[in-house]
């Protein structure tokens, strides 16, 4: 198994995740968009912490910043802290049940949303809508299916 092939699968999933993060949705559904990049980073760091870790999360965060047009470094900071927390605790988290990891995803998304808000509000006045937090619930809702799907992909393509 060459490492290049492993990375090809992983990077393809990153690419699709970035597309999902900016994909145009109807205005009604837009607030319910799950935080795809957090889910993907969480999954890969949990599954392969020796391959995907802080530096990957940092670069993905930078790309997300560029794609969304936000101030450089905001998503990069949050994603890399998330990757750090997961990569020092991955052995413990792996023994969690699916319900527990779902709750953990909810906490991660909540913390990241709050810190994004704090970082942005340090620069300018912001009107915060209640819709902003719907993404936490959709992310939690989608996580179990996403997790099983990604595990299937990882085992099918033998990514190690």
């Amino acid at each position, binding site marked *: 198994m060459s490492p290049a092939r492993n990375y090809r699968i992983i990077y393809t999933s990153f690419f699709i995740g970035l597309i999902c993060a900016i994909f*145009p949705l109807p205005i009604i559904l837009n607030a319910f968009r799950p935080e795809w990049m957090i889910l993907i980073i969480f999954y890969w760091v949990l599954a392969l912490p020796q391959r995907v870790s802080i530096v990957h999360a940092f670069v993905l965060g930078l790309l997300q910043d560029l794609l969304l047009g936000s101030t450089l470094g905001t998503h990069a900071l949050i994603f890399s802290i998330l990757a750090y927390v997961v990569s020092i605790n991955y052995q413990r988290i792996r023994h969690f049940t699916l319900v527990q990891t779902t709750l953990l995803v909810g906490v991660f998304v909540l913390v990241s949303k709050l810190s994004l808000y704090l970082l942005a509000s340090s620069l300018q*006045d*912001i*009107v915060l809508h209640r819709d902003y937090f719907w993404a936490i619930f959709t992310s939690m809702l989608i996580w179990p299916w996403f997790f099983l799907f990604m595990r299937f992909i990882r085992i099918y393509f033998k990514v190690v």
Partner: protein
Amino acid sequence: MKTIFTRGPSFLLRLSIVIALSLILFLADSQFNLFTSVRIYLNSLVSPVQYAADAPQKLFSALSENLVTRQALKARNQQLEKDNLLLKADRLLLTQLQHENNQLRELLNSQRIFTNKRMIAEVMRLESDPFTQQLLIDKGALDGVYLGQPVINEQGVVGQVSQVGSTTSRVLLIVDASHGIPVRVQRNDITAIVHGSGAWNKLNVPFVQSNADLKEGDLLVTSGLGGRFPAGYPVATVTHFDYLEGALYADVTATPVALLDRSRYLLLLWNDGRIKESDLSLDSLESDDVTSP
């Protein structure tokens, strides 16, 4: 073959380096604007992702444009021809008026240059940062787009270009909380500045004297004072004017004229008049006239 001991520097070291890097980036971008020139390359780096995400939408709209009945096409064509006729008839008068205006301005010795160069850009409806009001358009530095370029649609001013990539750029809308635009009231030429509020259809007009002659429904047009926006384009209508007894400034809010969240095509303007208008040769001509006799 998973070990606790990974190769390379420890997680904590990597984390601290990465946190320091992101904080430096954050400060450099927000406080010192160090990335305005590098942004072209950075935005070009991610534009393939943006075009990929925009492709299904584009395909769908192309399909729905192709799948139209002959009847509908005919009706639309007729409607457009009618519109065209009316617009052309208006234009006949407009050239006459323009000519007259030029003559009058020549008499007053103050010429005004209208910008002619413009370009149509299509909005890419992609998700952007939830805390800023901005749009992504499909034109970039390769098409001649520059930083701070005014952007309008057929209704009024939309915003200005805030980031340029080689094939995409970002338009900061007038309702963004960091955006301000110098305006004047069309009815009586009071000048003011319109600030964005961060909400989609509300603008603030701060520092208006509480005894100013302003009322609800007044149209605010660009004054051209900042030199960035050409003068005369409609920006907003005043929706609320109120003041407290004894307060220095009135509480004024306005709503943008252009439907910012619904426009699909935008117009980029080239503000050529910027240099010519600040040219003082006309004034010196006048002063020559005064001294020569």
